[in-house]
């Protein structure tokens, strides 16, 4: 197929190539269909392309004729479908409740840990204060002793 294309007075190869698929399915207007048909009678290269398209379609159609084994033993029943939806919903509700419970447990644990930390801090502060006060007392006594010596 040349760049400019071979064709009758109205249609070139490139234009035909775009319409081959619709031509194959007879989904073109009567006028367009006849123009493509005329072109195909004259152009061997486009005819070859057309045959390849036809092959692809034929194989795909054959594929459609082969029914995959997906038909279930028992047909669709609304009752059964609703039951399965309810089952899934109950399952999700259980998962949600469980998730909430775990989240609450974590929150409770975290709160408790933080309270314990606060208590530890208080104890630590008390010990520190006592130490400072004791050391302060020692320092005052030392000062008094030194003052007596001086006197």
């Amino acid at each position, binding site marked *: 197929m040349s760049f400019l294309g071979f064709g009758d007075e109205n249609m070139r190869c490139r234009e035909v190539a*775009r319409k*081959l*698929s*619709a031509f194959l*399915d007879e*989904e073109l207007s009567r006028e367009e269909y006849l123009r493509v048909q005329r072109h195909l009678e004259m152009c061997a290269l486009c005819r*070859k392309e057309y*045959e*390849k*398209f036809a*092959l*692809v*379609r*034929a*194989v*795909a*159609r*054959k*594929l*459609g004729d*082969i*029914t*995959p*084994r*997906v*038909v*279930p033993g028992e*047909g*669709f*029943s*609304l009752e059964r*479908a*609703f039951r*399965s*939806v309810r089952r899934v919903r109950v399952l999700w509700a259980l998962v949600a409740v469980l998730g909430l419970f775990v989240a609450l447990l974590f929150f409770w644990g975290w709160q408790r840990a933080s309270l314990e930390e606060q208590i530890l801090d208080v104890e630590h502060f008390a010990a520190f204060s006592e130490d400072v006060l004791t050391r302060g007392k020692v320092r005052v006594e030392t000062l008094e002793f030194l003052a007596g010596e001086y006197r």
Partner: protein
Amino acid sequence: MHMAEEHALPLGKTLEEERAWFEAQVKECEAHLLRFAYYLTGNTERAKDLVQEAFLRAFQYRHSFDHRYPFENWVSAILLNIHRQREKKDRFLKFFSAFWQAEQEDEEDFAEQLEDEGEGPETIALKRQVIRDVYRCIERLPAKMKEVMVLCDIMGYSYEEASEVIGCPIGTVRSRLHRARRYVKKALEAAYGDELLGLWG
């Protein structure tokens, strides 16, 4: 397809009557929809699941069904929408799951079901191989092209019916189908070269 009167929902009737009407419609098109779902998903279990959800959603929105159009096409459109939503979710999951591929593999080689019509073992083996190759090509098509090719080529819908199901103009169906077939044709040309035209008889 079917006559419009057969599909008319018994409006103003009891829920039981509506259910009976719905189940009768479902019975007619279930096998067809299963095939459609199978070719979209490429997996038996996912296809069954998809059809189940499509029917449920169809029942939920049964009052919006326009009985001038075939019931089958209406449910096909619903099924396609659910499939698209699931594909989006799957893309998201695939991004995070390295083990996704293992789950995707399917079990059935349905090309084996192609019957020998007195053509000889070599020819039938070659035909089966071509069917497998075309199926693989269709599976790998971009989603929009795949939808059109499954509807028009595999399921045998007209452009108009396909445009109803997909929800796009006929011109879009035409161009997508052309591109999809060209893609498959190129893949076959690459695989079989000049022998391509002699493959199918």
